[in-house]
């Protein structure tokens, strides 16, 4: 993990917002895949 000594604000606002969005999108995508699996299982029953 590279750190730049002396800088207080390491991140820009755009990166932070996009970062949070991406980090929250990840479980949303996993959830969609799970949804699909559950649907498949119920269909196949």
């Amino acid at each position, binding site marked *: 993990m590279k*750190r730049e000594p002396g800088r207080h604000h*390491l991140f820009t606002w755009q990166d932070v917002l996009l970062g*949070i969005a991406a980090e929250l999108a990840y479980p949303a995508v996993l959830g969609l895949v*799970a949804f699909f699996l559950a649907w498949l299982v119920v269909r196949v029953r």
Partner: protein
Amino acid sequence: MRLVRRPHLEDFRVIGHYTGIIINGLGLAMLAPLLTALAFAEWAVAVDFVISLAVAFILGYGLLLVSRPRRHDLSWVQGMVVASFSWLVGMVVGALPYYLSFHYRSFLDAAFDVMSGFTTTGLVLIQDLDHVSNGINMWRHVLTYLGGQGMVVLALTFLLQDAAGAFKMYVGEAKDERLLPNVVHTARTIWYISLLYLAVGTLLQGLVGLSIGMQPVRAFLHGLWIFMAGWSTGGFAPMSQNVLYYHSALFEAVTVLFFVAGSYNFGLHYAVWVGKRDELVRNIEAVSFAITSTLLGAVVIAGLERSGTYANVATLLRKGYYLLISGHTTTGFQSIYGRQLALEWGDLALLGVITAMLFGGSAVSTAGGFKGLRIGLIFKALVQEVRRLLAPESAVVVEKFQYMREVVLEDGSVRNALLIVVLYLAMWGLGTAVGVISGFPVREALFESASVTGNVGLSDGVTSAAMPSLLKTTYIVMMWAGRMEFMSVLALLGFIWAGVRGK
């Protein structure tokens, strides 16, 4: 053992000094519940916190007065001993407000809940949670939030985060490294990320609380607490029914977003927040988690289908998949009663959850378990072995992976990963054995032991105040050792041993 020489008086002074600082920090943390109690006019609770705060400072400043080291540098071994020792002392100090609240049957139970909070496990022995004061609830959730943060700081600092060597058990040349400048800088970055998420998460969770019919003050208080418990992958909740209390798919879905994000490696957060968002798809842990959670999700869903536990897609997801993801990230939010897991989920589904709990979340995060990094490393090592077998004698087979940057797979890293996995498995076995000795069926003991080993917090009903003290104590030790990834605990034992042997 050259690494740990016989402790000198100076060592005790250094350890005492830093333990004192940490205990004072714990005392300061008690301001949050104290202020909460005052805000809600819970006077008796406020008095209890004043007492506990005072005791913390007496102990903290007492230690500082008694331990005046000549130099304030902290060596690696000293740091490890401080880390493990202060968690034990902190456990006792932190238990004081709990014990004073009459919500615990014994001090051991109170200590259990503190350790459960610090290690972000989430198993509870508290009685009558539905009538607990806001002060105590604030303490419970603050403990888990701080415990999670603290562990990340420790991990980043002590576990010496150069890419492949993330979990060097033998730090050899690095043992003389000065830890302190790292601690401060690391802590600041982590706090920045966590506090920002705290604001966003509390707001979102609170808004959802409002939309499901809670009163504003309660909605945001619960939002704050649920966020803290989720982000720290702890799994505490302010009411006895855990997240089932809210009876809301939306509420649960939002918790998923935050507890999965909370299970990420802080290095990953850092990479993403400086703009390298593709790390989310390339990082070995992100990939490992996506694969194992999907595969184990399929196992759980199939298992639930097989035992006919849930009727349709909506319930399979909300109960089955939620529990799996909660277990895999080692969070421990549960939307079904523990006993239902034992009675209604078939063996296949439980097997899926147990595996997920053991696999755990990411390294350098609040999550527990083997960690995705180790699973990824071991898998890659297997691939490498196969490639070596198939390649000509003279060929050099190189395997690489992405962990904030491209890293070459080294035998040393694989060895360490395997060793720690073996230790976790051994601990799981020990926990299961003690569970069985305590009278629980092996199936249930296996599950609960896995939950403790991975600092998960899902319960199938084994954990209760009626548990034998032997099992409570075993679980406390397991929670602590597992969270510390054995390293600090081993260093502490080594330190004591070196003192005893006198060499």
